[in-house]
């Protein structure tokens, strides 16, 4: 068809070329060429019928012929206008469809994988930090234990050395001294014949009493020495027990501190894992929500929302389609991260 127009997005818009098109149509009709559904069989005085209006007219002669040419020209123009409008609408709809499908396939620019990777990176870094701090803390406790243990051993070694070398049993160094009474009148008594058994036995009795008191005092010293020895042995055992108790106490203190540190680290790791799981869940929920929102828009636009049938749509300037963001719904206000703050750069594509 001899239609001249301007090309807009691959669509030829018809222009009104006036009588030239009409003449061409008439020529085509007369030569038997199909002019697009119009029945010009009544041009010889018969009846013409407009396919659009269904209104027929009875013309005759040249006037009828001229009238038919004008109508055909007008109709051709109108038809071109309608076709252009339809093509433009279809093109816009296709562009919108492609944009929506592209948005659907890219989940509205929501990079779930990137966000999950970022969350994993944060978790790994935090976990390493917690484990590193735990290791450092345990090392510090170990150093503290070694220092405390050395100091304590020095103290009790000094006590052991003192008790072994300086402790004396004062009572064992004392011996009861004894004295006897002499009868310096013995020679006189014998010379006078006065040395009787009574004098001799009395002397022995007095010396026996002195010896008895000496023995009793020695027994007292022995008892005190034994008590002293027992006390010293008790003190040594007490020192040994104190050392053992202190050593055990330090060990328990160390174990308690280490257990507390490990428990704290475990708690921090659990808390971290919980937070990260919450972040992952929020990200996945946000992704699913985005996809559902886009799918709803697609469904409302009459586009198949079955993800299995959705094929990626890419910009292809060759087919006249250029992505036009103004045709898309505005998602700029969506909260992609559910309030999470991961710093900058996570959504950069």
């Amino acid at each position, binding site marked *: 068809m001899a239609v001249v127009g301007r090309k807009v997005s691959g669509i030829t818009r018809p222009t009104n070329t006036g009588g030239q098109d009409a003449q061409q149509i008439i020529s085509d009709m007369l030569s038997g060429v199909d002019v697009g559904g119009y029945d010009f069989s009544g041009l010889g005085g018969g009846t013409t019928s407009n396919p659009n209006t269904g209104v027929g007219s009875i013309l005759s002669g040249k006037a009828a012929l001229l009238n038919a040419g004008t109508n055909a020209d007008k109709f051709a123009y109108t038809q071109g206008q309608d076709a252009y409008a339809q093509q433009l609408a279809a093109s816009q709809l296709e562009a919108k469809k492609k944009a929506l499908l592209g948005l659907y396939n890219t989940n509205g620019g929501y990079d779930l994988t990137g966000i999950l990777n970022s969350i994993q990176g944060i978790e790994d870094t935090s976990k390493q930090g917690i484990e590193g701090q735990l290791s450092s803390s345990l090392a510090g406790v170990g150093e503290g234990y070694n220092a405390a243990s050395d100091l304590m051993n020095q*103290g009790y070694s000094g006590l052991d050395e003192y008790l072994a070398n300086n402790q004396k049993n*004062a009572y064992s160094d004392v011996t009861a001294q004894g004295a006897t009474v002499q009868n310096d009148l013995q020679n006189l008594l014998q010379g*006078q014949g006065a040395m009787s058994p009574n004098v001799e036995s009395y*002397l022995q009795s007095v010396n026996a009493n002195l010896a008895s008191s000496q023995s009793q005092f020695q027994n007292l010293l022995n008892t005190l020495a034994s008590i002293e020895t027992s006390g010293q042995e008790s003190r040594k055992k007490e020192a040994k027990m104190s050392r053992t108790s202190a050593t055990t106490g330090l060990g328990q203190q160390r174990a308690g501190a280490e257990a507390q540190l490990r428990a704290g680290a475990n708690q921090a790791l659990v808390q971290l894992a919980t937070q990260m799981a919450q972040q992952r869940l929020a990200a996945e929920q946000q992704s699913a929500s985005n996809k559902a929102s886009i799918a709803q828009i697609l469904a409302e636009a009459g586009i198949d929302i079955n993800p299995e049938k959705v094929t990626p749509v890419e910009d292809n300037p060759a087919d006249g389609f250029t992505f036009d963001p103004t045709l898309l719904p505005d998602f700029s206000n969506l909260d992609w991260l559910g309030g999470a703050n991961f710093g900058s750069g996570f959504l950069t594509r």
Partner: protein
Amino acid sequence: MAFDMGLFEAQRRAAQTSYGANASMNAYSRFLAEQGMGQQKDVLTKQYNRALPQLMSAYGKRNVAGPNVQSGIQRRGLGDFAQQKISDFGNLTQQWQNANRQYDLQGTQLESILQQNLADLESEKARQIAEDARAILQSRAGGY
């Protein structure tokens, strides 16, 4: 209380000084007691030395003693004199020994107390060092 070596040394010196003072006092008291006992022994010896000639003289005046004269009265009297002397010197010796033993026992107790005090100080020193060690570990463990 954190371990303070200076405080322990001061306590050690105080214990030794106290022992030295008490031991000196005890030794001096023992010396005075021995001196007193020696004087009592000398007095008693002199008394008996003076009494014996008087006793013999008394028997001579009563013609119950003398050259080639021995009587039962004199023999019994000398025997009683000898027993009394033995008894007096026996009692004096016993008193002397009891006094000496009391001073010896007191001196030994002072030495024993000193040993125990010094050992107590060493034990307390070791205990405070152990307490400091626990505090060190606590501070290291509690800092994290």
